């Protein structure tokens, strides 16, 4: 076994409401939606109109600037709405599902016997390509690129993250098939990054066709960007691809079963859930049936598709995000707190020891979405550095983004970071600066200027 790289800089935020490893049943959702906002930088072009009938795997829309990349319907049924926002921006394509899913048929084949071009073609046609993302920029991979390597992180260290071993139970065969297909896409290696403490499953330990690397330590150790930084940092002009384990399974199913089957387990967690546990759903499902009767309702709540650091807020009958494998429910916290900044703060979580909660390090917190302060100019320094396990100067990078200095962004390592890697910087920021938004803004600017 290779050496275990221990990530020391970072922070584990202990939240109440971790999901029990129990798979509960929920009524099947009737509506599903794919949201273009889940794909940063995408300009979607619709392929279907309202009332069109689609099968699972039929394209709903495609990338205007790269028409090969399709975004497929997760179920079969009827397109019932295309919800638009300001300037007719597409927000959601909503599908009313049939009671029995009809699958579009794709080629069933052993990926080991296929060429790179054939695999690419299958992935693009079926819409599964949209799960492959690239570094730099954290956007969907470009079909014409050949990445220097492909990275899969087999564990998630984010607050209340789903247990990936549990998510992949019974999927070993599809996972391996997916890995086989991915291995063909790169001239370099296919890295599977595991954590000896979190990954006990044979799905990972017996995976073939991969180079296993081990990581341990605090969040963001599970972020694939951090792992890439420690295995083979991104340089200018290089491209690497990343994909998550459940999505590798989707690819595997395409080749073993010949269908676009994107059913997945997700974790329902957070302090406002009565009994946090796992559910089996299909991607893009409405969360209404899952949440029904499961929430404590003594207070205003916030439903998040994804984790508390990088997820997006959805309504109680909103739809699950494309890449998300957890739903987190926390209190909204939109109330005033009398002299809150001066209280001892036993219930408050802080990386600094300015609140007395540091006396109880193992406590699980019930944190809300309150900012706990107002936006301010940068004052404190050295705080971001404590939670970014990369050889990148986070504050200087953020400042170069603020002043839109492209050269400096490039020099300071914009190619190496994704917004999620700096999510903890945003969490700990004393001045409440929106770090992830800024990183995304910087990336958008780079894409615009470099193309």
């Amino acid at each position, binding site marked *: 076994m290779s050496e275990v790289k221990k990530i020391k800089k970072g922070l584990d935020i202990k939240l109440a409401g971790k999901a029990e490893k129990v798979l509960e049943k929920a009524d099947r959702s009737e509506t599903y939606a794919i949201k273009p906002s889940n794909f940063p930088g995408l300009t979607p072009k619709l392929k279907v109109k309202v009332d069109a009938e689609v099968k699972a795997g039929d394209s709903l829309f495609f990338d205007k600037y790269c028409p090969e990349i399709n975004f497929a319907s997760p179920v079969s049924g009827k397109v019932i709405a295309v919800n638009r926002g300001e300037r007719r921006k597409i927000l959601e394509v909503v599908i009313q599902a049939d009671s029995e899913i009809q699958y579009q048929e794709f080629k069933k084949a052993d990926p080991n016997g296929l060429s790179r071009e054939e695999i690419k073609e299958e992935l693009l046609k079926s819409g599964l390509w949209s799960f492959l993302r690239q570094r730099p920029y954290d956007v969907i991979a470009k079909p014409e690129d050949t990445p220097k390597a492909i990275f899969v992180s087999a564990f998630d260290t984010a607050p209340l993250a789903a247990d990936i071993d549990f998510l992949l139970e019974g999927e070993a065969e599809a996972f391996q098939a997916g890995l086989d297909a991915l291995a063909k896409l790169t001239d370099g290696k296919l890295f599977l990054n595991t954590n000896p403490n979190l990954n006990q499953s044979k799905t990972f330990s017996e995976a073939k066709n991969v180079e296993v690397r081990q990581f341990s330590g605090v969040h963001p150790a599970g972020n694939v960007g951090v792992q890439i930084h420690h295995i083979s940092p991104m340089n200018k002009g290089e491209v690497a691809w990343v994909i998550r384990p459940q999505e590798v399974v989707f690819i595997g199913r395409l080749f073993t079963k010949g269908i676009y089957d994107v059913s997945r387990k997700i974790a329902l967690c957070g302090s406002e859930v009565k009994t946090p546990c796992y559910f089996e759903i299909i991607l893009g499902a409405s969360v209404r049936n899952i949440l029904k009767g499961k929430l404590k309702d003594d207070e205003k709540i916030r439903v998040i598709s994804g984790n508390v650091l990088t997820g997006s807020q959805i309504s109680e009958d909103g739809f699950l995000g494309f890449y998300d494998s957890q739903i987190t429910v926390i209190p909204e916290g939109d109330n005033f707190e009398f002299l809150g900044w001066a209280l001892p703060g036993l219930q408050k*979580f802080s990386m*600094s020891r300015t609140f007395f909660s540091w006396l109880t390090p193992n406590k699980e917190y019930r944190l809300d*979405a309150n*900012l706990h*302060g107002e936006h*301010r100019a940068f004052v404190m320094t050295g705080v971001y550095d404590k939670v970014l396990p990369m050889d*990148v*100067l986070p504050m200087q990078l953020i400042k170069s983004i603020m002043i839109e200095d492209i050269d400096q962004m490039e020099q*300071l390592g914009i190619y190496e970071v994704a917004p999620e890697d700096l999510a903890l910087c945003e969490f*700990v920021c004393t001045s409440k600066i929106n770090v992830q938004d800024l990183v995304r803004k910087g990336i958008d600017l780079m894409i615009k200027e470099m193309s």
Partner: protein
Amino acid sequence: MKALRKFLDKKKPLFQKGGKFAKLQSSFEAFETFLYVPDITSHNGTHIKDAIDLKRTMSIVVMALIPALLFGIYNTGYQHFLSIGQSADMMEICIYGLIKILPIIVVSYVVGLGIEFAFAQMRGHQVNEGFLVSGMLIPLIMPVGAPLWMVAVSTAFAVVIGKEVFGGTGMNIWNPALIARAFFFFAYPSKMSGDTVWIAEQGDVISGATPLAHAATLADLEGGSGVATSVIEQHLSNSWDMFVGLIPGSIGETSTIAILIGAAILLATGIASWRIMMSVFVGGFVMGTIFNLIGSNAYMTDIPAYQHLIMGGFAFGAVFMATDPVSGSQTLRGKYIYGFLIGVMAVLIRVVNAGFPEAMMLAILLMNTFAPLIDHYVIQANIKKRLKRVKVNV
């Protein structure tokens, strides 16, 4: 408390756009957010946030200053009664000190916050919490005999020229509190140096000169001669007195013990950078040792290196001034260099230039000026490393 909240909610529209007092919005908000942490929630990015904010940060620093302040109050009274040769009990000493010091604090806060509010109002910004700390630092580094109007002018100068012209909290180049002191020092030198300003309403039983002033006289004497030793025995307080702080000096700077309690609070809470604090002391000690080795005059030979760390404003500057995150170095590596050079410069100026016995202020202001340069080289090193990687791969 609900009644208060209701009252604020009722009055709030008056201060918002279109309201009767819309021009006073910043001031209203400053008071409102002082009373209540606002109900703002995050809308994008992380949904949860660390509970810390600038108000908490600044109030921790103010708390860390309280031991030095309390000791300053006591010492002011103590020195006064000592100098007039009268004995007084604890109560009298403290009350005397309070009467002398409280007005200075009030003037510093009223003038400073008044200007901060006015600027925030003019710019339509929120009032920043930065001055909560500066407003406490300024009185602590003033001589107790400082006339109040001079304190007011220095504070005003520090806030306007030291901070607001650069854009307010977070944008300033120099530590505002030190700007106040530097202004005071150069504008009214007779009130900031010599041996009559450090003790309130001084009698003539003891000399009012600070240990630093005595030490400076050593520079004229030859090293190793018996003369120096006798000067030390006569005037220079012993290390223990300097460590405890029962010596004449600026209000909050005399007691190393009180300062170390503050340092412990700052380091335990993680507010101040231990890198800076440690390297200032290391720098001072190293420079002191070098002087001990050179030994070209009595100042160099007869003041052991460790005494430099407890004399004058060295400890206070290291703990509370050098660690200011805005005017200090911002990169982790830069912090070591920045701190080390402050320590070195402070002792260097102090020993070599007898005209500036209190060199800590100058050392920190000098290194504040150079902090961006230090950062620049640290950043360049990071960039070079990244570029080198590309070349290796190609």
